[in-house]
């Protein structure tokens, strides 16, 4: 069982632009856009490969541990991927169980499966690390893991059959998700929009009053 310490967390920058100190509306807008850009850049990207479904399952350690089960298909094979526990925490031992059967006759795959992991966070470096290669054991490929940091990861299972490579990605969320980046993005976008509209509209009204010869209040 290997311990991971992958990928330092992305740190948000702070706004030190000169534009922030100015009171001019256009500069304010630029500053707000910059803040919004930072929010958007700090958003998490989420696993978009396959979605899982937590449920009760059986394994050899306990009769009712919640697990995350995902079913997928690749070529001639039907793959079931289960993670124990369903929501692993940092420094907590977990296990991946992989069942691979042929779609046509249900025959079990008899080749070793290589498991690798990569960070699925937005702006993460495209680096993957090998977790291990597992042979079939009682119809199942079992791979243990321990993650030291929370985050969104992608587990890739790779095998070859009849000279043809197969690889399939599964999401793995360790620890809680961090939704603040997205929330910040949404709130920031709305905030910028409403302020921009208000400023533009006030200018339009003032210009219109000026053109009509009415003093601006």
């Amino acid at each position, binding site marked *: 069982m290997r311990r991971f310490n992958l990928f330092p967390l992305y740190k948000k920058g702070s706004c030190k632009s000169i534009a922030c100190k100015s009171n001019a509306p256009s500069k304010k807008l630029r500053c707000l856009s910059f803040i919004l850009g930072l929010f958007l850049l700090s958003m998490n990207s989420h696993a978009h490969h396959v979605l899982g479904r937590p449920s009760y399952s059986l394994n050899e350690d306990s009769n009712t541990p919640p697990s995350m089960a995902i079913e997928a298909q690749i070529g001639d094979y039907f793959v079931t991927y289960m993670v124990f526990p369903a929501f692993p925490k940092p420094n907590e031992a977990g296990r991946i169980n992989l069942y691979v059967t042929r779609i046509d006759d249900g025959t079990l795959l008899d080749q070793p499966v290589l498991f690798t992991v990569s960070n699925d966070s937005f702006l993460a470096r495209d680096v993957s690390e090998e977790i291990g290669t597992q042979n079939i054991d009682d119809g199942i490929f079992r791979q243990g893991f321990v993650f030291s940091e929370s985050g969104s990861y992608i587990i890739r299972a790779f095998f070859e059959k009849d000279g043809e490579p197969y690889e399939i990605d599964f999401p793995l969320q360790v620890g809680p998700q961090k939704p603040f980046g997205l929330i910040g993005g949404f709130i920031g976008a709305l905030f910028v929009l409403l302020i921009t509209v208000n400023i533009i*509209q006030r200018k339009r009204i003032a210009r219109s009053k000026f053109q009509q010869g009415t003093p601006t209040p």
Partner: protein
Amino acid sequence: MTMTHPGLPFFWVMTAISLMLLLSVWCLMSKAPQEKSARLYPLARMPFVGAFFRFLNNNTWPLLLLKIFFASLFILMVSAGLWGSPIVERNLATALTWNLWWTGVIIAVLFSGSAWCAICPWDNIASWLVNRRLWGRATNHSRLNLKLPRFLRSIWPATLLFIGFTWLELGVGIVSNPYATALLALLMVVLATTALALFEGKSFCRYMCPVGRTIGAYSQLAPIALRPIDNDICRDCTTLECYHGSDDIAACPTKLVMGRLQENTYCTSCGNCTQSCPSNNVGWSLRSPSHEAIQVARPHTDEAFFMLVLFALTLFHGLTMLDSWQQFISSLAQSINDKGQLLVSFSVGLVICLATPILFFCGCITATRAILGKNNTASFTQYFSGLAFVCLPLAFSYHLTHNLNHFFREPTKWGDLIANPLGINAEPLSMMEKHMRHSELMVPEQVMFFLQSVIMVAGFLIAILVIRHRGKHLFGASGLKLLPMLAFAFSVTLFSLWMLVQPMTMRM
């Protein structure tokens, strides 16, 4: 483990088909129908309920309270999705959105027309954010009031968003992801706010909202709508407060004049007209169900496409919950070397399922034109948009019967969810709980089968009435000349019944 609901029994299917055959014979043998004017029964003038509806018309606070309640529920739902448990059935976001709202909003159209739009949290939160007030007419500082670009002034944006929604719901599977559900809800608020801040009126509601347009289309069949209480008062009105608004009340957000209103499609039931009318002459009325779709509503090409897409996606919804669909997608994925969640295969399947009913419809129109021969005076587009109304009752009836299955057979423990909306420390459903839910029907099974059969036959009957009236209006035809369109309605209803017979995958 996937659990399925049992399908409609053979007896009910045969009964429905027999009635459909009888109706088809009647349609082919009877003379062309006579035009009838719609009857309206203002609820404010009815005994017993009249006082209640007059109270609703004269007071703004009940509607405001409802808006605040649903907006609060929406914020709770979004919070649960973002910060709550990822367990689908234990999180309020997924349970409320997909099990109750998405199912119930269609059923609600039958009883309340487009009333949901009045309390829709997407629009209300957007309005509060932009106008910075809870009620009444806003200052002109908060909105740019730009004209919507011409290319967006149709319901094509809503049609495309609806297809996108379906792809996300059934393809990506956001129904089983509380976080994605909450993000989608927030995205809709951002879209509504952006449109409201930039453009005049409520362009999001009128042109872009897929839910609003679905409700608008179906509400043409609803027996209830906002209408003038006394048409003579509207006829003599020169100030048109319902259209322009008053000093305190905003104008109609979708630019409708109540005195001339014939179609419910774009009415969002916001109540501005009931409040601004100086004669208190606008209120909820009962009316002949489906009269609007049968003969009153004016055909438009974009609306016709929306109705066809709505119809195709409704059937597609049912299809994806059958075992045979999974097998089809699996085979398709193997043949095109798709892997993982099979999104490419799903997208191909979606396109096929969208195109097939539309092409079938076009084929039936072509056949009708061929039968008419020299008597054919209208263009293909006129036939297309005029006869597309036939899809509405067919889509609505299947949508209702399908949703009844979800609604009655998938009871959610709302007490537990309200007590713990974020699902903190909750465990997934055990196998015992799944079986319990499966066996706990809200109504006796035979009652549900009866309701489903009645709704399917009623949908077919309304489709026939649409064909007869629109057929006469478009090409003065009756009898055998209606055969291609009748075949369209019959075969589609037959296909819907076949889907209802199949066991349907349960949505937890």
